[in-house]
């Protein structure tokens, strides 16, 4: 794992990717994992010849990421305001159009990174490799988001503990691999870190003033999101690897 990270960072193309690939006002998690992922993607694509499959998987993951980001963003909107549809769409489109895009990019990167890492470590992921399980994983992820957005908790401690337990449960139920855990944790840490940096620099603001509570659930969401996207990515990779055989 660390070796891979080193290799990723020492890759010569990383600065270029970093500077041109993303708008400056990019949310933390996306940007960070995007950069790391872009580098590793470059590494992977150098090593792999199936670049077409890679692109296809990336596109699928990007779409999934964008869609999930939109849905979860809508989920976070407080419900005590009856908004008109055009209002919602306006806020979606105007203020933060780049959030879904960067989420999609991040999803593509993380989802490609997972199978890549698996193949590098030489321990292919065999646990519950089927689409039904992936769907279940996505549903649980949305459920965790739902819980974090809609439920009333007594305090932040309870919220973050509950979410952490849920995220760990997600990992244990659907992943159970060391690499998945490590990668998810790294993603979560980096993403939270950069999100905080961005917030402190005033580039991005939380809608709710209580930053502290947001900070408490953000890593859990990132972790479970990483695991989910990784699950999808692995399944996609397996599907594309299997296809020639079935033909």
């Amino acid at each position, binding site marked *: 794992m660390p070796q891979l990270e080193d290799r990723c960072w020492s890759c010569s193309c990383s600065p270029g990717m970093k500077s041109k690939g993303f708008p400056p006002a990019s949310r933390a998690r996306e940007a960070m994992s995007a950069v790391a992922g872009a580098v590793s993607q470059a590494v992977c694509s150098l090593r792999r010849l199936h670049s077409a499959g890679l692109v296809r998987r990336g596109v699928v993951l990007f779409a999934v990421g964008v869609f999930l980001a939109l849905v979860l963003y809508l989920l976070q909107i407080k*419900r005590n305001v*009856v908004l008109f*549809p055009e209002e919602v769409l*306006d806020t979606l489109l105007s203020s933060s159009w780049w959030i879904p895009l960067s989420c999609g990019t991040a999803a593509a990167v993380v989802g490609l990174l997972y199978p890549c890492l698996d193949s590098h470590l030489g321990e292919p992921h065999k646990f519950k490799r*089927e689409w039904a399980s992936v*769907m279940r994983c996505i549903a649980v992820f949305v459920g965790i988001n*739902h819980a974090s957005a809609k439920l009333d908790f007594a305090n932040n401690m309870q919220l973050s503990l*509950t979410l952490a337990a849920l995220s760990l449960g997600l990992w244990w*139920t659907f992943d159970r691999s060391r690499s998945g855990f490590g990668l998810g944790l790294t993603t979560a840490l980096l993403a939270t870190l950069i999100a905080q940096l961005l917030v402190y620099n005033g580039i991005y603001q939380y809608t709710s003033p209580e930053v502290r509570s947001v900070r408490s659930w953000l890593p859990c969401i990132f972790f479970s999101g990483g695991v989910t996207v990784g699950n999808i990515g692995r399944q996609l990779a397996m599907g594309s690897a299997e296809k020639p055989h079935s033909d």
Partner: protein
Amino acid sequence: MTVRERLRQNISAAFYRHGLLCASYPVPIILFTSVSILTCCYPLLKLPLPGTGPVEFTTGAKDYSVPSHEPQGDLGERPDWYQGPPVAYIQQVLVKAAVSPWDSSLVPVDVFRSPLGRVFSLLEEIRNHVYTDRSLETLCLQVTELLPGLRRMQSILPEHGCLLVSPGNYWQNRRDLFDSDPDILKTVHQHEPKGIHTSATLKDLLFGVPGKNTGVSLYSRKRVVTYTITIALSSYDARFVASLRARLKQLHPSVNCTLREDHMVHVHFKEEIGIAELIPLVTTYIILFAYIYFSTRKIDMVKSKWGLALAAVVTVLSSLLMSVGLCTLFGLTPTLNGGSIFPYLVVVIGLENVLVLTKSVVSTPVDLEVKLRIAQGLSSESWSIMKNMATELVIILIGYFTLVPAIQEFCLFAVVGLVSDFFLQMFFFTTVLSIDIRRMELADLNRRLPAEAGMPPPPKPGPLRPREAPPPPRPSPHTITLQAPAFRNLRLPKRLRVVYFLARTRLAQRIIMVGTVIWIGILVYTDPAGLRTYLAAQVSEQSPLGEAGLPPHLGVAPVFPGGDPTSTLSVLPAPEPTPLPENQSQGHGASRPGGAPLTSPQISWGSEDEEVWRRLSFRYWPSLFSYYNITLAKRYISILPVIPVTLHLNPQEAIEMRHPQDTQHAPRSSAKTTDLQTDLTLYKVAALGLFAGVVLVLLLFCLYRVLCPRNYGQNGVQHGRRRRGDLPCDEYGYSPPVSEISPLLLRGHSMDIECLASDGMLLASCCLAGQIRVWDAQTGDCLTVIPNNGLRRSSSSGCWEHRDGWDSLTPTCEPDYNEPPLRRRVTPSRPTLFGDQPDLTPLIDTNFGELPPSHTTVGFGFDFGGLVEKAYKEHEASPTMHFTAPTPPVTPAPPQRRRSLGDPPVAPPERINVSPGEWDSSVWSLELRGNLIAAGRSSGKLELWDAVEGTLRCCNEDGSSGITALAFLNNRIVAARLNGSLDFFTVDINKPLGLLQYRGPPGRASLPSSPCYSSEDVISCQLTRSVQCAHQKPITVLRAAAGRVVTGSQDHTVRVYRLEDSCCLFTLQGHSGGITAIYIDQTMVLASGGQDGAICLWDVLTGSRVSHVYGHRGDVTSLVCTNSCVISSGLDDLICIWDRSTGIKLYSIQQEVGCGSSLGVISDSLLVTGGHGCVSFWDLNYGDLLQTVYLGQNSEGQHVRQLLVLDNAAIVCDFGSELSLVYVPSVLEKLD
């Protein structure tokens, strides 16, 4: 460890017993589960149905006090939401105003201008009303600014003050603006949204009555303007409201108004589901459905996949219902939003156990009893099921200790759901599974087992099946998998593809249907109240008893006895503020004589005015409050009894208030014109409707003409093969590019080709002269020429010129490789060759068959040059015309030739007169597998030739009767003889499966898996078994596939043998004539056709007849089956396509005379038939002619007598002495 083991054993044993129980008594157990499900769901009846419609609660207005927050004991029927103060108290002032009497000098605008103008004085009155130092300002609901998105409404809706809404808001509550407004209607309508709107519009909002009831219109016939002034009060002061009511009533009394004033209605609004909530909800449901789809897709090897998937879903859903029901039973009311947590519950409970159960049961040995299978399957998975369930329970219990109420409730539901799910799995699903397994047909199982032909299959399904279980009772053709027809393989124009796609999926109909349903749903959902009141109003207006249904009217009528229609006019000139004594019946009476142009407007108060807000959309209040960012979700408002205000204005006043521009509308003012107008509108609508109908009919007709083939589905479609020259084009005028398919002509045989055989790579053909040629099926090159034993006439093509090559032991015709344009080389020399070639048959008497095999493996060298040259010289001297007709006279029904072999006394005449004495024997049948050609001769000799080297590898002369048919499968050869016996040979190679020697061009060596033999192997062919009396009469057809050999004979029977031990399994009787055609393939589909024109489909596993149809007048000449249909051709030159499962004739294709028998199927949807010098491609699904390919220049007039479809989608046609190789490029692409 021992404890665990013991536990495991116990669990397993318990599950085993349980499985036995379930499988033994399926019906009682299913009844028991249904009863328990229903019992557990019974408490659900008490729960309110989900919905977003508002709920009402009515209390008396007199003794009203704000309900306290704490629920009291004696709630009675008081709903649980009726706690705490409401969001607002709504006081509505309902104003009905009219100008009366109406006289002809008034213009239509007068109907509403002056009545609307009075709103300002009313507003003034209300605003300034003070009751013991309380004014409206202190009591009313103060609102702040509008939502940021509503800037355009800023000038209309009040901001920073009382929420007081009236039509005066259009003019900022300023009289001067109203007076200077030239066009009131325009002002009112300028804020209306365009198109369809579902929620309350601004007009509804300000007028407070539905738009059509306001009377603000130029064409209103009642001339009564209705509007409300809506006041939202934040606190309720009964005395203030009462004094306001009294004041207004005093100012503007409504005499005949008997509206009830003692009821307060509290309206509670459910949670609004906005789009922001809807999208995540829909997403979770989509994910849920994807999960269910992907889960149930894995169910396999069962009788009905759909049934089991449904059972699985039912299991999960009813376990959820049970859990909710049980929780309600024990006093726990669900507070969570059921719709949104439902997907998560399903996902948590999951379908995995069900799938695991199915898989485990299915994987038990199939020959066990069903009971035992279920029990074994259950017990083998019992441990993992229990373990999983324990794990899930533990996880959920951990969730329970998070101490978050919502999560606790979720976990409780999940736990109960899990337990009930387990219960249902064990009882319901297991039983359903046992029923399904029992229903599963044996044939189904067998069909799915890979049919390994020739290999000794260890399970031995064949003999076991019929014995241990009775043959399935219903003879349905279930062995046939009805797949969706594969997409068309030939290239089609895009528009046709689109049309076909639309037609196949019925996309348009479905979209329209779904759209209609959604639209109706939206209509009903958004405005149920409005629809209902509208309907009620319609009913009460139209029925003669309508007035009797409204009690207030009856009560009013006697009070004013003078109120009859005649007295109305006399009372009209009353002073302005005084009331008009009128009532409901007057109103009706005055308006009923429709001819009277000058009816005065009547103001009436009915019970429907009591609660005006009911006639509005139920979104009226939420949308009004939501403009100010106040939500009504889960809260309630109290609506106070309405204050009625009646305004009568005299015409003078109305004229005074006119705006100068109002009179412009004058010409349209009379009632007559409005009548005329409505009539005109009616006519217009009618004309428009008629026009639209005509256009629609025309459009449909055009569409029908475009889309539907004229002769679709008719018997004997006469497509009419086109002559050469005119373009082949299909029904739609589309002519596919002819250059796409170019036939490759293989020439070389001197006489008619008798037998054709191929294994996909190589192609062997044998002509009447006994010469066997081997061609490369890819390039069309002639690889080998094997001359007849007595003949050395291999030389009609390049081999003659290269007899040096022949002499130097290279049996392949080298130049054929190097010169691909075969035709060019051959064509010029051909006619002369045939004209004056000598008959070499008598010259050469070298019999290769008599040579010992050891010699042939080494090779042979004979110098025929001298002999042949001598013969040539003789021939030139005295040309004997042995071969005057290179293409013998075309027999009208070539297919008969094969069959006629069966008649023992009548040998083919041409053969006989060609080979009277010295002719050893002719090849009657040919088979090609790998590198070996098996040739059956008329002398009963079976020869095995190396296809590449042209050497005789083996020869067997055990039989003496001619071999009429051969089957070569793996290492077995079956030969059917003329005397009705059947011989089974085994080909032994001493070096097993040597390397590939010649498998075509490199890169394509992966085709068939047939055995190949290298030249070094010594091949021996032994007769393993000979069934002497397989049939009483000659065997006419022999087919082998899937480990079965099927023979058809003249004795009207079909017999099925097993290949490996040559044991006769079934004798199938059902035809009333000799068998002429048989089809069997890897999926063990057996079809037979006879001389009686009947086609039978058989179940090979049970020997039962699946269907039996009469299709042809005369013999059935060939039969082919695809996944969905059976194609047969007969002597009547008709090709019939039958549905395989139902036995219904789909359509038929009339062929040209004599061409009926040659047909082949390339893929599931592509049929090839032969014709006069051409082959035609048909789309099997639609019966359309796709393309006709002409074969060569001089093949005109010759029939395609045999047609062979190779694996790589090449078609070999045989006409006369030529072969033609046709590739279908698009099919090639698909297969590659």
